[in-house]
């Protein structure tokens, strides 16, 4: 036990009493293994549960950690499929974080046995509902064999929170200051160049870091503002940041949070409503809900975990090439065997796949920009690259088989750290990084090849 002197509002204590008891019970019952299993795993026979409470960023964090068996994501996946929540394919695609959070779904219990203490599948969903009710969040992290830790973050008080009032589409919205990092204002003359576009996803470079932008009016379906000045509210949810573009930033203040009626409860983008000084009602934005709706949060979490998995400073040589629409893409040079230029007249068709005779072999060709259709069209010059006589071809080899990727004009090779700044939510693109000061998309060679030659990566007989 740690942080016994952390204080909370009495109403909140009431609200978290039951969930907290429940979670400690869970740790005792599911988390800690039986003594024999613990000894076998090389741990002391006696289990340990740590309870910690502390203040952090205007919130109280309570952590419950045990040194038990942890939660096996595979088992949760299996249960999710069994219950029909997901198909096996969908379940396999879920990130570990998403999988672990499935235990908060109602009726979800992976416990093999039902004991007097827990395992009936009612519980974690109630925990989340209760914590949600008071405006808090629950998060779960687990390492198989090493234990599970549950983190509850709750506001200091229910009633009054500091907020920032912004407008969008003639409506006023309040943003809790807990989530607020900073405000960025882009003057009209800079607005056009400062905001870059990664295929429909606007980003802003905030001190060298790509900040995904979410347009509030677009997310809420409100009329768009045509003002030239761009106001960005930089928000943080857990470990990810995104910029919320609003029409104007009004004022800060303290507001009384009122819950929304049950008809509106399922709107994750709103945390509640409040009455402004002039008597009108304004909605309070739920930054997490808004971020998830715009896919700024969930995805970014995937990136964060991916970034943790790969050593951050790993450099890789990349082959840069231009796409027909003037954007930049890159392929890791490790996946490239040779660069060739093929004459368009050498192309032949085998079935519906373009092939070329190449060093006594038949080489299938894949036009990368046909796999990535949004890259294909160049509004100014629709024929570039695709129709020219000399086709730049990147030869890619995998276990003795070769395939040629027809790309755009090859620019350069560079050595770059491959820490993705942002994943792209599209097939064929792994993510993007800034290379030579330009946003560059990294081609996902495997998925592009699979799209045309599905069994390319299958083991050969």
């Amino acid at each position, binding site marked *: 036990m740690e942080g016994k002197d952390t204080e909370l509002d009495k109403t909140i204590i009431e609200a978290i009493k039951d969930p907290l008891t429940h979670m400690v019970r869970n740790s005792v019952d599911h988390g800690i293994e039986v003594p024999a299993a613990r000894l076998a795993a090389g741990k002391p026979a006696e289990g340990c549960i740590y309870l910690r409470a502390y203040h952090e960023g205007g919130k109280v964090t309570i952590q419950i950690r045990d040194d038990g068996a942890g939660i096996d994501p595979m088992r949760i996946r299996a249960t999710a499929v069994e219950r029909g929540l997901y198909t096996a394919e969908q379940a396999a695609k879920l990130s570990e974080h998403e999988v672990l959070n499935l235990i908060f779904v109602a009726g979800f219990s992976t416990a093999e046995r039902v004991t007097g203490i827990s395992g009936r599948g009612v519980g974690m969903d109630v925990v989340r509902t209760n914590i949600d009710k008071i405006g808090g969040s629950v998060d779960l992290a687990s390492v198989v064999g090493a234990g599970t830790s549950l983190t509850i973050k709750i506001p200091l008080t229910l009633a009054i929170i500091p907020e920032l009032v912004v407008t969008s*589409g003639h*409506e006023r919205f309040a943003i809790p200051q807990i989530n607020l990092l900073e405000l960025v204002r882009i003057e009209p003359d800079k607005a056009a160049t400062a905001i870059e576009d990664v295929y429909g996803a606007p980003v802003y470079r905030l001190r060298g870091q790509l900040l995904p932008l979410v347009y509030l009016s677009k997310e*809420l*379906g*409100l009329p768009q503002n045509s003002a030239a000045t761009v106001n960005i509210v930089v928000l943080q949810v857990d470990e990810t940041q995104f910029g919320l573009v609003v029409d104007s930033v009004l004022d800060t203040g303290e507001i009384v949070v*009122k819950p*929304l*009626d*049950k*008809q*509106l409860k399922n*709107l994750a*983008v*709103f945390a509640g*409503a*409040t*009455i402004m000084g002039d*008597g*009108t*009602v*304004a*909605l309070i934005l739920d930054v997490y809900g808004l971020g998830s709706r715009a896919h700024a949060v969930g995805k970014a979490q995937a990136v964060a975990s991916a970034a943790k998995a790969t050593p951050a400073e790993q450099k890789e040589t990349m082959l840069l090439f231009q796409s027909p629409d003037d954007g930049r893409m890159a392929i890791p040079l490790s996946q490239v065997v040779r660069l060739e230029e093929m004459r368009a007249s050498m192309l032949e068709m085998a079935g519906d796949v373009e092939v070329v005779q190449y060093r006594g072999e038949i080489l299938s060709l894949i036009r990368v920009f046909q796999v990535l259709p949004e890259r294909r069209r160049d509004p100014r010059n629709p024929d570039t690259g695709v129709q020219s006589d000399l086709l730049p071809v990147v030869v890619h080899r995998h276990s003795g088989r070769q395939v040629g990727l027809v790309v755009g004009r090859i620019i350069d090779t560079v050595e770059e750290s491959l820490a993705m700044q942002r994943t792209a939510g599209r097939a064929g693109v792994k993510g993007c990084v800034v290379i030579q000061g330009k946003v560059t998309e990294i081609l996902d060679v495997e998925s592009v090849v699979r799209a045309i030659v599905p069994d390319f990566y299958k083991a050969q007989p």
Partner: protein
Amino acid sequence: MIDLISQHRQYCTFRLDQYHCGIDVLGVREILRHQTITPVPLAPPVVKGLINLRGQIITAIDLRIRLGFPSCPEIKPPIIIVVDIRSGEEGSTAALLVDEIGDVIDIDPVSCEEPPDTMHGAIRELIQAVCKRDQGLRLILDLT
């Protein structure tokens, strides 16, 4: 005496499109005009927005949409009926938007009938009874 009251109830009537409806007067808290309604983006269309009733935030429900009528032509501001809804233990307050408010009338249970089976749509499950009055039929709405 109690029995008599429960049988012989008073109903607050209002007009919605061409229909005259009534709700139990005991559930009605107040009638309002001219309220600023703050729209809620992304909300289901039935939710018109939020209103501030002396510091309490109440969800305004467009009864026309709830009952499946064409939405209001917005010529004049709608009348807001603030009602208490009791469902089981929980009670909540809602604001119903209607076209025009009518009188409070006494309704004799004898004159009420089940809604006809041929009635369709969203309105069917919300109608408690159809009451035959001299001036025409009155529809009794079930608030819950």
